C-alpha cells in the first residue's frame, strides 16, 4: 500500500450561497506526479488554497504527511512548497532577497547563498539574482516561483498552473523539470492544470474536477487508456484507410471530414492502427488525438 502524503476528506468551500467546491476527496501517494485537472473556474485554485489553509474549508479537512493542516499547520507544511495561482513576489526586492525570505520562512533561518544561487541556476535565473523582481517578465516570475518552491528540498511540491504564461520552450522545460524532480529527487508533485496534454505527459495519477466536484480520479493510464478518444487521421488513399479502419472492431464512428478521417478509439489502439496502415502501404501524414479537456469530460460523462 503506497504511503499517502496528501489526503483531503469531504473538502468543501461555500462562498455565501455558492459552493465553490464540494466533497473533494483526494489521495496523493508518495512519488506521484499527481495531475489535478479541470477547466478554468472548476475549483482547482480554491482546493489548493484550502490545502495551504489560505482559505478555511466549510466542510472537511486536509491532511499532509499525516498532520491536519488546520490543527498542526507547521508540521503539515514543513516539507511542502509550491506556487498558488500566479507567482507573486515582493517586487521591490531582488530575486535573491525573495528567495532568501522564502527560505527563511520555511527553515527559520536564511538559506546558504550557494544554495540560493544553485536553485536559481536550475531555472536559469542566476544571472538575474540581483535584479528586482519588478523588472521580470511573467515567464521569469513563473520560473522564480518554481525556484522558491525547490529551494528547501521539499518532499511535496504543489504547483498551480506552473506553465501559465510561459513560451513553448519554457513550458517544455518546466515539464522536463517536473519529470526530473519526480524521477531523480523522488519528490511528490501535485500539479494543477487545465491543459490535458500537460497532465498526460507528466502525471502518473490524476483527478479531474468540474463544477467544484471530483468527477474522476485514478492512474492516468487507466483513465485515458480505456476511453473512446476522438482521433483525426490524415492519410492517403483515404477510402482505403477508411476501409482498413472499418475492419477494426475497436474503431467506431468513422467518417470523412474535409479529406481527413475522424473516428473514435482507445488510446492503446493507436499504435496498432498506425502499424496496420503502414503495412497496407497507406501514406500517413498525421494522426492526432482530439484530446481537449471538454472532449475528455464528455467521454467520462457518457460512460
Amino acid at each position, binding site marked *: 500500500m503506497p504511503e499517502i502524503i496528501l489526503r483531503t476528506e469531504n473538502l468543501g468551500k461555500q462562498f455565501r450561497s455558492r459552493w465553490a467546491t464540494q466533497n473533494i476527496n483526494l489521495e496523493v501517494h508518495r512519488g506521484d506526479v499527481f495531475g489535478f485537472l479541470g477547466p478554468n473556474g472548476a475549483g482547482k485554485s480554491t482546493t489548493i488554497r484550502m490545502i495551504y489553509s489560505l482559505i478555511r474549508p466549510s466542510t472537511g479537512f486536509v491532511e499532509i504527511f499525516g498532520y491536519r493542516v488546520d490543527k498542526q499547520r507547521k508540521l503539515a507544511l514543513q516539507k511542502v512548497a509550491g506556487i498558488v495561482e500566479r507567482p507573486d513576489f515582493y517586487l521591490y526586492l531582488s530575486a535573491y532577497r525573495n528567495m532568501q525570505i522564502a527560505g*527563511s*520562512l520555511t527553515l527559520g533561518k536564511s538559506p546558504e547563498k550557494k544554495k540560493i544561487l544553485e536553485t536559481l541556476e536550475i531555472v536559469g535565473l542566476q544571472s538575474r539574482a540581483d535584479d528586482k523582481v519588478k523588472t521580470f517578465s511573467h515567464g521569469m516570475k513563473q520560473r522564480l516561483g518554481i525556484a522558491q518552491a525547490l529551494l528547501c528540498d521539499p518532499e511535496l511540491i504543489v504547483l498551480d498552473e506552473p506553465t501559465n504564461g510561459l513560451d513553448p520552450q519554457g513550458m517544455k522545460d518546466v515539464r522536463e523539470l517536473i519529470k526530473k524532480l519526480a524521477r531523480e529527487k523522488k519528490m511528490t508533485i501535485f500539479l494543477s492544470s487545465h491543459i490535458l496534454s500537460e497532465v498526460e505527459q507528466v502525471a502518473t495519477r490524476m483527478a479531474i474536477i468540474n463544477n467544484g466536484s471530483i468527477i474522476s480520479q485514478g492512474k492516468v493510464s487507466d483513465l485515458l487508456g480505456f476511453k473512446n478518444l476522438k482521433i483525426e487521421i490524415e492519410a492517403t488513399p483515404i477510402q482505403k484507410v477508411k476501409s482498413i479502419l472499418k475492419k477494426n472492431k475497436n474503431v467506431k464512428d468513422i467518417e470523412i471530414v474535409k479529406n481527413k478521417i475522424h473516428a473514435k478509439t482507445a488510446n492503446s489502439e493507436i499504435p496498432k492502427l498506425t502499424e496496420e496502415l503502414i503495412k497496407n502501404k497507406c501514406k500517413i501524414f498525421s494522426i492526432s488525438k482530439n484530446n481537449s479537456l471538454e472532449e475528455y469530460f464528455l467521454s467520462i460523462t457518457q460512460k
Partner: protein
Amino acid sequence: MIFTLIKIELFKTFAKWRTYIGFIAIGVLFPVIMYFLKTEGGGIVDSSMRSIKNEFLISGNLFNAWVVTEFIMNSLWIHVPFLIVLVAGDMLSGEATAGTFRFSLIRPITRTEFLISKFIVNLFYASSLLIFMWALCVGLGLYLFGSGDLVSLADGMITIIPESEAAMRIALAFGLAIISMWVVASLAFLFSSFIENAIGPIIGTMAIMVFSLIISNLPVDAVEPYKPYLFTTYQSVWLEAFKYEIDWVKISDSIIALGINIFAFFLISYFIFIRKDIRS
C-alpha cells in the same frame, strides 16, 4: 521563528520607498520650519514674550531648541499621525494588494506569528519616526537656537522649566508621544487587516482620528460622557511633560488607557486576520 519573522518584516518594511516618505517629510519640512523660525519667528516670539522676560528671570535664549521642539511637537496632532498611517495602513493591505500573502502564508508559519511580527514592526516604525523627529528637532534646534529655559504654554498656562530639566522633559514628551502614536499605528493596522488596499486604511484612520480629536476637544456637556472612551482624549499625554509639576498619576492612567486601545485594536485585527480567507 518569531525573531526571524520580525527580521524579515523589518527588512521588507525598510526596503520600501513608502517607508521613507515620513522620514523625508520630517527631514525636509522640519528644518525648513526651523529655518523660518530662526529668520523670522524669533523676532515675533521675542517681542510677544518680552513681558515675560521682563517679569521672570530666564536663563539662556528665550527662543531656544526646547521651545522650538515643543512648538514643532504640535505636528503630533495630525501631521505625524498621517505619516505613520501611510506605512501602518499598508502593513497587511499591501500584502493583499500585491498577492504576497500567497508567498508567505504557504510556509510553515502560523498566522498568529505572522501578524505579531508585522504588528511589532508597525510599532517599531512609529517609534523610529518619532525618535528621528526628536533627534532632528533637538540636534538642529541646539545648533540653530542654542539652549535655555523651556517656556511652555501647554494647558494654557505659562510654565517655565529650568534649562537643566528641559532635555529630560523633551525626552519624556517624545517617549509619551511614541505611545500615543502607537495607538494611531494600531488603528491603521486594524483597518489594514480587512481592507485590501492601502488607501482605505489611511482614509479610515485619519477620519476617525480627526473626528475623535474634535469630539475630545469639544467643550460641550453632551459629549462629556463619551470622552473617556475616545483614545484621542489620552493622546495629549505628552503635554504632561511640559507642566511644572509632572502628574505621574495622570500619565500612568493615560498610558493604561492608550495601552488598552492598542491591545484592543490588535485583538480585533487578530480575530479578523485569523479567520480571513486569502483570495487575493
